[in-house]
């Protein structure tokens, strides 16, 4: 008897009341996206569990992709029997036998969602545990720290058994919390900010400011590579690449050097907010972390935030840099982020940017400049790229 399906536990999701079907449908979609390379599998949604019918696909192959899907509390490969204690015992014995080697300990963890079943959880534990123990020499019980934890879940439609349980990515399924625009620079922080919002079910579109010839095609490619990494955690992602050179040049020309950084950020926010409005998103997301650089002081945030009433979400605001780096390493964006290409935030950095800019002052400096026309033009010329990208590979596919 081989594991022929996977039992998926929802966790936080189960508490969502009347919205639950929305959540389970999104979760189903996320799982299908994560397992799209395995065309045979079929999904079956139940109100408190989701089943993946493997149909011949080895469990080992779906295990890693499943660990990345948000909204899953844990999952187990299972075998199914009818609601019949002899059948359960036989299946249990076979599973334990397969996982047994000399000196191993075991326990049975029964769970009964169908209260009509003849035995209660204690009864199941005893009936199954006793049966297996009698028939396996050298097997002992350890209820605290067993090597083999045999899960038995009795449900209306059948009984599911497993010796394995894997933690899921937790969080909420992609797209259940609406859409937000992520300001993606190419550094370490912003991809992590995107990841954390995705984990809370937010669908992300990215915005990147590109300033050729001050920033190179490699810098842009780096951002696309980062965004592509993030698509592993849910779904497709659009990246809006905004041509930003003219605006940066104008700011350099018109705004005193201490305030260029503040003005630049304000222009970015304004553009991002306008793209957000067009895309029907509900918030902006940044990778800001308090006190990390001059633009990330509370004074700076106040001055920058003043351009829009839209919520600006800053999931990293209270995190230490080392903790952010650790997440970046886990999600695979760190090594891309540290590639040494200039981005639009670093090239025009003045020697001494104001760490405590005053809103009135920046407003006064900007009042002499007509940014509207430039901003409009930048938005009109924004390039939209859909990821994951098929194109980059096929460009060379004939050669390879």
């Amino acid at each position, binding site marked *: 008897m081989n594991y022929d399906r996977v039992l998926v536990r929802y966790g936080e999701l189960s508490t969502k009341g009347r919205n639950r079907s929305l959540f389970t449908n999104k979760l189903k979609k996320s799982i299908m996206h994560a397992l799209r390379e395995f065309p045979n599998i079929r999904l079956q949604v139940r109100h408190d569990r989701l089943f993946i019918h493997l149909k011949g696909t080895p469990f080992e192959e779906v295990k890693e992709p499943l660990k990345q899907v948000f909204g899953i509390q844990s999952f187990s490969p299972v075998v199914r029997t009818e609601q019949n204690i002899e059948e359960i015992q036989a299946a249990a014995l076979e599973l334990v036998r397969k996982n047994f080697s000399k000196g191993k300990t075991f326990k049975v963890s029964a769970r009964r969602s169908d209260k009509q079943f003849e035995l209660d959880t204690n009864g199941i534990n005893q009936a199954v545990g006793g049966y297996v123990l009698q028939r396996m020499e050298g097997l002992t019980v350890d209820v605290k720290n067993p090597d083999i934890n045999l899960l038995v879940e009795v449900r209306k439609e059948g009984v599911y058994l497993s010796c394995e349980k894997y933690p899921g990515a937790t969080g909420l399924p992609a797209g259940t919390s609406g859409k937000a625009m992520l300001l993606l620079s190419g550094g370490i922080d912003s991809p992590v900010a995107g990841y954390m919002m995705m984990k809370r079910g937010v669908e992300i579109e990215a915005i990147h400011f590109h300033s050729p010839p001050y920033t*190179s*095609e*490699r810098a842009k*490619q780096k951002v696309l590579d980062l965004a592509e990494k993030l698509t592993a955690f849910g779904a497709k992602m659009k990246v809006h690449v905004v041509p930003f050179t003219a605006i940066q040049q104008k700011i350099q020309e018109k705004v005193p050097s201490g305030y260029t950084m503040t003005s630049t950020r304000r222009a970015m926010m304004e553009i991002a907010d306008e793209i957000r409005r067009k895309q029907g998103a509900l918030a902006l997301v940044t990778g800001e972390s308090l006190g990390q650089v001059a633009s990330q002081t509370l004074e700076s945030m106040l001055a920058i935030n003043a351009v829009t009433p839209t919520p600006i979400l800053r999931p990293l605001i209270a995190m230490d840099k080392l903790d952010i780096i650790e997440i970046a390493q886990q999600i695979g964006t760190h090594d891309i982020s540290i590639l040494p290409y200039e981005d639009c935030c670093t090239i025009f950095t003045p020697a001494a940017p104001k760490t405590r800019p005053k809103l009135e002052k920046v407003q006064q400096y900007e009042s002499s400049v007509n940014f509207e026309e430039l901003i409009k033009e930048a938005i009109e010329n924004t390039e939209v790229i859909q990821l994951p990208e098929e194109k*980059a*590979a096929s*460009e*060379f596919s004939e*050669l*390879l």
Partner: protein
Amino acid sequence: MIYFDNSATTKPYKEALSTYVKVNEQFFGNPSSLHHLGLQAERLLFESRKQMASLLGTEAENIIFTSGGTEANNLAIKGTALANMHRGRHIITQQTEHPSVINACQQLEEHGFRVSYLPVDSHGQVSAEDVAAALTNETILVSIMHVNNETGAIQPIQEIAKLLKNEPQVLFHVDDVQGRGKVPLNLENIDLCTLSAHKFHGLKGNGVLYKKKGVKLSALLSGGNQESGFRSGTENAGGVAAMAKALRLIEEHRREHGERLRAVQQFLRKELEGRQDVIIHTPREGCAPHILNFSVERLKGEVLVHALEERGCYLSTTSACSSRQKKTSTVLTAMGVPKEIADSSVRLSLSYENTRQEAEAFIQILKDTIPTLAKVQR
């Protein structure tokens, strides 16, 4: 022409050659250049690296491109020795390795390293027990080839890998130049592995050193820090792309024509075994499907190679690399083959393109050639 010298080199696939030409016409930029042409070449290099990695069952970051098998073997052995000499100065290898391994080890001996050259049995195989027995606290590297280039004997790589799994301080290098595309090899428990493109219908001048993540290696070529600093020098993007394509194609051919190749080899073996004057050195069990090494008694190998060449059949004596030095094959000597028989040996090596018809024609030519030569030699 009957080309039976595929262990010396293979004929490049037309597709690989056309990739090489196209890349050098369209994507000739230096991958390190900042501009668009450089970026294109860099991306092509990356796509090639990804494809190579996926065909080898590993990640792109574990692939170091080199100028060929010899460089990759040197980098693996000397690079490991330099980077790990503070932990120990003992290396284990075996007597039938390719000269690029043996001579690299000998060079290290001149610099104070100790090298154990393990013996092989009469089938040309080293034993995992011998490897285990040779391990010391000073051992930093074990280097054992996968398929022998002269006899086709397969070494017990998985057995040795399993043994070394319990010795985390000892790195395991495998020279897979002759095996790749012919005999599958799982890299899971291997730290370093050498490939050469022109042995699988890619171009000369391209090779790979697979290096498992975390393995410490000193570069032999210093410069612009290409290949993550392990191998400086402007990347040969055309050759690399051609190699990635050739590897993809030969893996397809292996799946489709693997049986046929083995059948051609079996046919040749049977015919040769039927002759009183032929001694076959390639082991019957545990050999690659494309190599047959044999001696025709009292006939110098070199003479036979030239005589067959006159009839349009191309073979080698020993390995192509050593055959011009007119020395007795060290591989056959290590297997205990007497000198006069070893000096008669020739190596026949096949590709997936060779057919049964060619094998039949070859046997006939051999039958006709031997008596004419034997007359003169005696």
